[in-house]
């Protein structure tokens, strides 16, 4: 009997993306540049987070026509974003037959209390998290992949570092003694927390996202234990997207090779302009 859309198949696709770079793209031309540079997947969206920040308007799911065009143009997996809690946007993306849905704080939330019940869907979901409790709640709702929230569109890595370190620290702190207390605090099934305690790892793939702007940023997140990276504005918000994209792909693979990192970091032109956290009007991560 053939089985489809099971959790094994959803989390399995995320496992195939490990060690890779997922790039935000706004049109077919950028999607082709991303694929040519060696991205493992593209995230189709109308405006990269950096532009969403600038224009301060409600940000929604992208136009299905644009998502479809990008899907036609590349052979690598295509992802797209829906607003937190907006399960109808997710239904629409599923009808477009893309490969992965990102329930993303970068878009304006549709529901301040509920995330999408991702177990209801055939497609796998990735969700953002700032800490272990948040990651586990998303996994309990059916997320097949987790990414740090970081702070998208800032070109500032500090929040992604904070979130990844926090998740890793909280995993390390789980013991038989505090298991019950932590389970209550996180508000999930004890089985899930026990699994994390035993494996010393989330039960799904964990990527870094939010603020990665240079090859060194990507390698930093990999050395801190991320299993791959999302780069949003860092590529198409930079001066030379083609070179930046290629350099970040190589840096993510060879993250421990400092000579290679030095070589690929040379002469890339200006990275995206970064923003200090205290100058931010909206912190996406708090959504």
């Amino acid at each position, binding site marked *: 009997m053939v089985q489809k859309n099971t959790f094994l198949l959803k989390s399995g696709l995320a496992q195939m993306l490990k*060690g890779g770079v997922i790039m935000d793209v706004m049109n077919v031309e950028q999607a082709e540049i991303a694929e040519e*540079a060696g991205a493992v997947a593209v995230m189709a969206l109308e405006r990269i987070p950096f532009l969403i920040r600038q224009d301060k308007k409600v940000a929604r799911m992208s136009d299905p026509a644009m998502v479809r065009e990008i899907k036609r143009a590349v052979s690598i997996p295509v992802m797209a974003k829906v607003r937190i809690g907006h399960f109808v946007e997710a239904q629409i993306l599923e009808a477009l037959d893309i490969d992965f849905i990102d329930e993303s704080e970068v878009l304006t939330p549709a529901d301040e209390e509920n995330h999408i019940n991702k177990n209801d869907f055939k497609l796998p979901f990735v969700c953002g998290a700032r800490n272990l409790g948040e990651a586990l709640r998303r996994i309990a709702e059916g997320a097949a992949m987790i990414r740090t929230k970081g702070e998208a569109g800032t070109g500032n890595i500090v929040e992604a570092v904070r979130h990844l370190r926090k998740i890793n620290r909280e995993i390390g702190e789980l013991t038989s003694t505090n298991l019950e207390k932590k389970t209550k605090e996180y508000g999930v099934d004890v089985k899930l927390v026990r699994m994390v305690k035993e494996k010393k790892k989330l039960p799904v793939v964990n990527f870094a996202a939010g603020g990665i702007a240079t090859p060194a940023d990507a390698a930093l997140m990999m050395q801190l234990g991320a299993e791959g990276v999302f780069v949003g504005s860092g590529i198409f918000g930079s001066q030379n997207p083609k070179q930046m994209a290629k350099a970040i792909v190589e840096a993510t693979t060879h993250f421990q090779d400092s000579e290679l990192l030095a070589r690929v970091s040379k002469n890339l032109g200006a990275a995206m302009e970064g923003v200090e956290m205290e100058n931010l009007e909206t912190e996406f991560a708090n959504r």
Partner: protein
Amino acid sequence: MKVGILALQGSFAEHGVVLDKIKQPFVLVKTKQDLEGLTHLIIPGGESTTLEKLLKKSGLWEELEKKIKKKELKFFGTCAGAIIFSKLGMDLQVERNGYGAQQNSFVEKLESEMFPELGGVFIRAPRFKVQKNSKILARMGNEPVLIEQDKFLTSSFHPELIGETRVHEYFLKK
């Protein structure tokens, strides 16, 4: 015998778990130097376009072509690995994402005399088209899904995701 797993991108850690389970030591391969002395190389599932680019950039591609000509190395590849082999000289035609996008990924029981009850996890899998001079070790209906040809062994599915060890054990005896 010295076994390596290509560790540029994809499910290399999962292949490592299978080798650990059968107590087979291995090295992770990221550079040309890592190929030294290898007798067996595993190419994991992943994105084949990404793997191909990283193989070429690191100089591994050229090295592998040489080793294939000299028949110095045995290869086992899952999913994306098959696509790489088809470009490295294995006589195999593959259709990328031949079963469709992610919603058409599936799990199915396979038919195999050598590996009874073999489970097939197919994720955006390639479809094997022509397989001249090949031994078909497992099928799904009429379709070949595990093929052996000279120094190559390759599957369109992922034994490494479900703790299946028999295919790896067979490869290591090659």
